[in-house]
Each structure stands twice: as C-alpha cells, then as structure tokens.
C-alpha cells in the first residue's frame, strides 16, 4: 500500500544538538565518514488506496500547521509505494 511521507528537518541555521551528539559519537565507534550529521523527523501516513492530489494538498496544509514548525523547520511531502 502506498503511504504519504512527511520528512521534517531543522533549518540549516538552527542549532541541532542531537545531530551534533550523533556526529560526535560516530568516530568513537570507528565510523569516520561523517563530516556532519543533522537529525530530523519522519511521518508515515497511511490512506485508503493511492494518495490523491487533494489528499496530498491536505497533508501539505497539515504539515505547515502541525507536523512542522515553519519558524525553525522545513518539510517535504512525498509518496512511497
């Protein structure tokens, strides 16, 4: 079943202490690939059948109102099969 996915990330200029903590923990475990790490949130939304454009528009609105805080975060709505 297809689902609607909303990915929320802190804006680049907003301090992300959680991402920094993960970034600092990686090399301690021998993982040296990361230049930096930012941590976000992911919402998976199930709807009946395939998402319609109207549903996607509603999700977009909900993301702006509730799921993300546009003052500090950006979001991206997508569909995953």
């Amino acid at each position, binding site marked *: 079943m297809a689902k609607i996915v909303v990915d929320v990330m802190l804006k680049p*200029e*907003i*301090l992300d*202490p959680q991402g920094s*903590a993960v970034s600092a923990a990686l090399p301690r475990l021998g993982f040296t690939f990361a230049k930096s790490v930012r941590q976000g949130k992911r919402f998976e939304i199930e709807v009946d059948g395939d998402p319609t454009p109207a549903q996607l528009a509603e999700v977009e609105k909900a993301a702006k109102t*509730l799921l993300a*805080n546009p*003052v*500090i975060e950006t979001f991206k709505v997508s569909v995953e099969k």
Partner: protein
Amino acid sequence: MKVGVVTFPGTLDDRDAARAANHAGTTAVSLWHGDADLKGVDAVILPGGFSYGDYLRCGAISRFAPVMEKVIAAAKGGMPLLGICNGFQVLCEAHLLPGALTRNHELHFLCRDQKIEITNNQSAWTSSYEVGQEIIIPLKNGEGSFQCDDATLAALESEGRIIARYVGENPNGSRNKIAGITNERGNIVGLMPHPEHAIDTLTGPTADGLGFFTSVLNAMVK
C-alpha cells in the same frame, strides 16, 4: 482581579502558578484546556510542565486546545498573558511570540537556581522590577534554547522586547542569552525560568519571582 491558570494534560506547575497569583493579591481561577471558556478572568498564565508529553514538539499540540482559541483572541485584544517554560513554548507555537524553544545546547535537562537580569520593565508582567535588577529564580527545562532568525533577533533587540537575560554562563544556548521576551504591545510575556517557584523563602530559593505576579496586578489596575 482574576488570573486564570490553564491546566493541560501534563501540566505540572499550575498549582504553584495559582499560589503565586493568590500570594500577589490577585485571585487565581483554574482554566481547563478542554473548555473554550476564560471564566471572565482579567489575565492568563500558561504554566510549566510537559503538556501532551512534549510529543511532536513542546507546546505544539497544546497550542490547539479549545481554551487556547479564547486565550489567543483575548491576548490579541490586550489581555495580559504570561507563558512560563512550557507556557513560553506554547506561546511561540501559537505565534503570539516570535522564535522557538529548542533542545538545550548540551542536551542535558537543567534544574537549578538561575540568576537573570530584568532588561525591560515596561511589560505587563515586569513593571515591579527595575531595569538591570538581578534576580534568582529556578530554571528547569530540557528545551529552553531560544532560537530565531537574525532579523527577528535584531528586531527584539532594537525594540527592547527582551525582558530578561541569563547572567553568567549561557545555560542552554539561547541566542543573546535570552530568558524571556514580550510582544510589541507588552501584554504577552514568555519566560523560560520559573518565577512561581520563588515567591517566598519557605518554598523557594528567594522571593524574587513574586514581582511578575504583582506587576500584572498593577497592569490591571491601570
């Protein structure tokens, strides 16, 4: 003079906020998050705690509680409104105040007596203080780092809307050591530390916090 104190599911400090309001000579009235009714109060306090378990973002769900519709409308009309800690987060989520409160920069939950400097005594909640006065009240939060964009910060600074700053080391990474701010009109104040826990020396580290609650009495008498 009636001061409403809102209780959301997960609010912790409503009792202390009500006690502080009564101690200051106003009459505290309990307001329930699910009732779109302000019971004729003259001012409202959104107290600290973990409303809705801080799920999603602190204050993000409480901001849509039925009582908030009335609180927001009244505050836009000039009613004094104080958000403490979680209440400050609710005010930012409701866009009554600019910016947002994010995770403390060192990720630790803080709980300590904190010195702050009052930097604006023109708001409805700070008129009992002198500008430059240093007070000690408890600070206890996990997400108390005030963040906003550069333009907002510049506006807050130039308009004198920062009502209090942390003294000494920045405890949580707040921009420009901001502990509290107000809106253009001065009736809405958000404050991260807790004045309601410092209204007498029997229960608090000092009685320094009482001034927030006597200030609003003066504001309402005016």
